[in-house]
């Protein structure tokens, strides 16, 4: 319940386009995107990227691990928090007003 509440709160912040919680085998558990294909696309692509990033970080130093990944593009920003069990990603359009 607290998870749901926080999830909804994140979505209500200014500029947030959507958020997805993906399970470890690639199934989106919670998604705020209405269209399923958008969700699936985000899941697949971001998971691969997070996997690659984690691999890179750990190759450089095996004691290290990836905690957070932020991809800033021209139009928006994708924030990814990977974890052994799941992956949480939030897409936000950045602007300066709170």
């Amino acid at each position, binding site marked *: 319940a607290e998870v749901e509440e926080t*999830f909804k*709160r994140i979505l209500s912040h200014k500029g947030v386009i959507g958020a997805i919680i993906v*399970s470890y085998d690639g199934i*989106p558990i919670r998604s705020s995107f209405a269209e399923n294909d958008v969700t699936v696309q985000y899941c697949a692509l971001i998971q691969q990227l*997070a996997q690659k990033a984690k691999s890179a970080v750990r*190759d450089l130093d095996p004691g290290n691990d990836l905690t957070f990944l932020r991809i800033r593009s021209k139009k928006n920003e994708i924030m990814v928090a990977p974890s052994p069990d799941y992956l*949480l990603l939030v897409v*936000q359009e950045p602007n300066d007003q709170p």
Partner: protein
Amino acid sequence: MSQVKLQESIVTSSRPAAAGQSAANASKKARQSRKGFYASGLYASRATSGVSSRKSGEEKGVWSKYPRLPNDQGGEDTPKPLLEDDKKVSYDTKETPSELASQSQSSQLQQTRVHGDRGSDRGSVDQLHWTEMKTLRDQMESPLTEADLEADVDIEISETDTIWLLDIKPKLVNPETDGDLAELIKQRNEAYKALLADKVGNDKYVAREMNTLEATKMTKPCQTDEIGRSEFGNTASGWDMFDSFQAQLEKEKADRFEKKTDEELAKEAEQQQGDDPLEDNRRPLEPTSKSPAFVGRQSTTPSVLDSEFGTVRESVAMTAEEQAQLDAILTSPKLKQTLFIIERAVVQNNSQNLLATYRHLPIIELDKTGDSEAEASQALLVRQKSGASLSPHLAYLWRYSCPAVKGQAVTCMVWNKQNKDILAVSYGKHEYEPEMKNGLVCCWSVKNIQQPERVFRTKSGVTALSWSTQFSYLLAAGLFDGHVLIFDVRTGSQEPVFDSYLSPGRHFGPVRQLEWVRKEAGKHEETQEVLVSASSDGRVIQWSIRKGFEFKELMKLKRVTTVLPGPSQKQKQQKADALISRQASGSSMAFNPNDKNVYLVGTEDGNLHKCSCSYNEQYLESYFGHSSPVYSVKWSPFLTDVFISCAADWTINLWQADRTRPVTTMGSSTKSINSLSWSPKSSCIFACVNDGQLEVWNMAHSTLDPIITEPTDEDTGRYTHVLFSDNSDSLLVGDAQGNVQVFKLENMPSAPKNQAEALDRVIQLALKTELNASQTA
């Protein structure tokens, strides 16, 4: 090494023995050819040496040139090599003489070339050789006649080349340098000679022939099933191996785990405690045993995963098990933590500029509007200038507010001692109200300005807060009903870790001030931190958390008659005798930052008392200057014996510890001053709030007027509390509506180099003027 030398020799017949029939033929032609054609021939040597030489000639280059045998017709009958690579040469023996002549010409040319570079151009030699072999084949097919047999055969004998079959160089030993070795060798030689001599008629040696039987071979076919093959590939990255080793280590630990006693386990668990109170980084105790790796968890085939996870399965019929697993993910605490962090990130994105200002970072324009830093700093400059012109002023940054706290007054704000980004704010009421609302304590962070990160609800309004220094995650809250609660903010659970509900020594009046004090204890105790609370019931109580929640009464505040100068002093004193109670009620408290045994207490009568923890009956000193409850008293962070107090009588007094009268009195409005705070950066600057406005004073500049005033507006309500920020030039103001506004101080005068001196100067000046005033009066 067997070296074969080319020799000049005239060959007339040099057919290999195998082709014996046409030898006569060849010789006949050779005789005729003596007129003209001579060839240097290796094949001469072939003929003399017979079969053996041919066999030994397996090296290349041995089969070099075959002697040229021109035939009767003027052509050539030189045998051609077996292998042809000269396509121009044809197999047809019945060639026109002209063609043959041309062949001979070409072969002569080749030969001359070979003459020219002996031994170097092996390739061409081979070529020539092969060409000749073909001619040889042709020769064989022409019919022989009786006359051929009778003909004379000229045979030329010449020496063969030396063919080295074995060449072992002798080893030379110098008997002078290697004397021992030479001796040994000599002995060996002697022995060998003796052996040889012996061997002749010796019975030990029998000459015998042996024949090795060649086993007859037979091939036998057999059949098997197809041998199945499969390929398996794997890549292991560096961290993969690390993970496997870690797993092994952990397994070993687990084995040892079982053998340990409980005490040892408890000790180990204590040691692993996180630092940041709000970010709950504690690892789960048992390793997660979920199966396939995700984003590179402990897996053996990380590269294979890429292809697996590339395809997201369509959520068709999911089994109940899978569903349960997914639900488990949703309720996991890790997910909460992650959401927490992401929320911070999201909010930070939105309020990037504000946070940058707060932290004194340059503002970067993040947006689509082209180029960036110049514009943004321009905007900030404009904002600065639009305010007052270069005089100190406040720039509003953001406010901490959420629906839960709306309507409640902010009663206290404190920064966390360890992590200066965390702010605890208490909400409640200072005055009694017929319907007591529930109180709240919220932990806000600079990193998330939209939502409090911890919310604790209490039964009654909270009036005092303090963070512990020793355990930076413990937050003590004093309630309006006199109770003292201690929360652990790491877990965020609503239940306080300690509370004074059952304690007999609890307060009966609202707790006005709380402070954690580090006490130097006796010889056999370590320094522990105790919580001291001052309340309106006139008692100052020290709480210790070592074993349970123990209390110890430090002081009972007694009413002291104020000794004020004035004519009707005696009368006042007589009146003061008839008091309702001898107990004074404490309204504020401050421990001396240098001497932890000494603290100041402000009472509702307006008196300030200096007390010591060692004496609980008497005051060390009393200060008279206020005529109404002292709401706040604070020691100066720069001068050890200077403190400042504010009261409901519209005044702020600056005191020195050894003077019972204030050094100077400041005031600028006709409203009671609720709170005050020293600036951590500059010794002469402090801020105070009264009901209507926020004031920042610079005593070095003027003690008559504040340098900044910020009036409140209607929707913010009256200001109730003020606090400087330690790590940034900012000021926080709490108001009666539950908002905490954050302002940035701009254009403040820079801190004096010697802070103590600056403040001292102020005091001296004030004292001097007072002296002058009293003298002139």
